[in-house]
């Protein structure tokens, strides 16, 4: 603080010779009176009721008023802006009364001509010999630069807060848009298929990213229905575009020629042609045709796989086995890839499960380093064999939830089952969707 009055310099040398030390001392010699008047800060003394009794020239110059206009006529709060006066009455004055001192309070004084000058104010109460408060001594520092700096900080903080609010709003809007898009990539409900029960589930790993998994079930003709489930490489808008193209290509291809290999080949041609440049896009998929037999209650399944994990068949007798489709190639990479076919028949109570590798590659174990794996899935399937598709999907949703943060990829599940019991009944099952 520069306002402290220094000690009087010691007289240097009795002979009065102007040694360099003595000259320095003379320079230091400064009257307390002059220091008070011209100190680089404002000095103010008031009665306990705030009436100004004394103030220095520095403060008078800041205020731009004559001494006579202030001393005995004005109170300290009269020198402040109205807002500052409110702050003085609600905070400054009570604290000063309670503590006997207060320091570094940011206020503004009114200057002649209407300008305001930011100051930092400190006050102490001077007490009499019996402890009664006598007067208040106040020091005011010029805080124009400091206040400009603080206002800059405040402005930035407000801007940062505003930016954060905006970003949160944008993120919410984006998530809404992504959720709508994601839904557009999936059927909202599965169709009613006489003699077949269906159930599906889609787990979204991140609300910020569009996933690349897809599935669908639709009628081909009066007797046959097509189904597919697959996984486009990558995530995000570009993967979603491929997903969309894939879904509608497969639907159109199946109407033209429902043979599974033909449908996958058409998709391959489209993807390969569309993404042949520097940005190859491909997918894995199983495409199949089901044909329920209303007399026997059996459902024949014939499918083809392009590099996709094998379907799992849960038998009513409590067993569970993969329907192997080895050697099928990714769809969209090569001009004329080979796809692997397989057929099976679902007896009443049997269920066919299609899934994406988000399920089998979920990380498990305490340190999340092991993968869930095919064998665990087969065993899980055996544990739920004989149950209708909806119950199997429900059990799998529980399994996915149990993975917690070990499940970091999107996962699509589709189950098709031949109804158990004497009469095949078609129950419409809405596709479930999980965005955890």
């Amino acid at each position, binding site marked *: 603080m520069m306002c402290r009055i220094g000690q009087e310099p010691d007289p240097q040398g009795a002979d009065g010779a102007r040694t360099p030390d003595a000259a320095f001392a003379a320079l230091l010699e400064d009257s307390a009176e002059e220091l008070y008047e011209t100190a680089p800060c404002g000095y103010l003394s008031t009665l306990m*009721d705030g009436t100004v009794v004394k103030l220095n020239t520095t403060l008078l110059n800041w205020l731009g008023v004559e001494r006579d206009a202030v001393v005995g006529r004005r109170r300290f709060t009269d020198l402040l802006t*109205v807002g500052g006066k409110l702050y003085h009455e*609600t905070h400054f004055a009570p604290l000063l009364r309670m*503590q006997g001192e207060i320091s570094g309070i940011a206020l503004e004084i009114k200057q002649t001509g209407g300008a305001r000058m930011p100051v930092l104010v400190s006050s102490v109460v001077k007490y009499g010999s019996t402890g009664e408060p006598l007067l208040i001594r106040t020091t005011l520092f010029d805080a124009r630069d400091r206040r400009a700096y603080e206002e800059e900080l405040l402005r930035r903080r407000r801007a940062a807060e505003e930016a954060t609010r905006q970003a949160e709003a944008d993120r919410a809007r984006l998530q809404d848009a992504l959720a709508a898009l994601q839904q557009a990539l999936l059927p909202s409900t599965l169709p009613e298929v006489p003699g077949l029960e269906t159930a599906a589930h889609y787990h979204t790993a991140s609300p910020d990213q569009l996933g690349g998994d897809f599935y669908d079930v639709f009628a081909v003709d009066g007797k046959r229905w097509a189904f597919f489930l697959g996984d486009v490489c990558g995530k995000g808008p570009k993967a979603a575009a491929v997903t969309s193209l894939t879904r509608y290509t497969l639907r159109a291809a199946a109407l033209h020629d429902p043979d599974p290999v033909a449908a996958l080949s058409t998709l391959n041609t489209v993807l390969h042609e569309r993404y042949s440049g520097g940005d190859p896009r491909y997918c894995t998929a199983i495409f199949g045709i089901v044909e329920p037999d209303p007399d026997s209650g059996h459902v024949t399944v014939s499918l083809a796989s392009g590099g996709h994990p094998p379907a799992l068949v849960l038998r009513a007798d409590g067993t569970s086995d993969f329907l192997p489709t080895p050697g099928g190639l990714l769809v969209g990479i090569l001009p004329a890839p080979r796809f692997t076919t397989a057929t099976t028949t679902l007896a009443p109570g049997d269920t066919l499960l299609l899934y994406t590798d988000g399920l089998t590659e979920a990380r498990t174990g305490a340190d999340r380093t092991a993968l869930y794996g095919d064998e665990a899935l087969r065993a899980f399937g055996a544990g739920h064999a004989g149950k209708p598709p909806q119950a199997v999907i429900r059990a799998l949703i529980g399994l996915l939830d149990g993975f917690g943060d070990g499940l970091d990829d999107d996962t699509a599940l589709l189950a098709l089952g031949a109804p158990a019991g004497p009469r095949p009944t078609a129950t419409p099952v809405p596709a479930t969707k999980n965005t955890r």
Partner: protein
Amino acid sequence: MDILRRNNVTVTGNPHGPVVVLAHGFGCDQNMWRLTVPALAEDYRVVLFDYVGSGRSDLTAFSAERYASLDGYARDVVEVCEALDLRDAVFVGHSVSAMTGVLAARQAPERIGALVMVAPSPRYIDDEGYRGGFDEQDIDELLASLESNYLGWSSVMAPVIMGNPERPELAEELTNSFCATDPEMARIFARTTFLSDSRDDLKSVVVPTLVLECTEDAIAPREVGAFVHRSVPGSTLVTLDATGHCPQLSAPEATNEAITAFLAGRR
């Protein structure tokens, strides 16, 4: 919820005496009454508290919606009265708390039997035919002052003070702690206080009321004191020879004398 803890309630004085509740206004906390309590302690049971968001109240109980109106603060008063099962208490409210007391007395008439209004103002902003002394710009300036002065409040220290109610010296040691408030909560209290208009509520007061005004009050000028006196049916007006908005600190003897005389008249 523990209301006594939430509002940092202190009960002192004569446990068998009539109850006097002392309520602080906008700015500081129950320490505002430190020179008043000694004058009352012998004959009265004295209840002190901090509004939620002020002093050493439980800041986690603060709600921007609830405290956006004086009714929210009045509910603090009623809940403290209920927690202590007070009946027919004399409510002494400083500044905006004088109006909070009016609202509380209406919410729970059986709890509050008389009002002492210290430097009250039912409306701070000028209106047609009414001079409160301020305009909205002045209030914005006050909010700016609040923003520039944190008065020893810091988000780092607040939990330390709050988490150690058994060690009050922790708070006492902090300079300016009596007026240290979370800036956002202070801002809301300031807006609620200075943008309030309780003029119509004054007419509904049915309990004996003492209005204390100061000769020179920068916040509640004398014409406001006269307005309050005129509006509260059957009220008594006492003008204290005091400067400033806090006569209980700047003129404690005169303030205490006026309050004890009013209290004695009720016994």
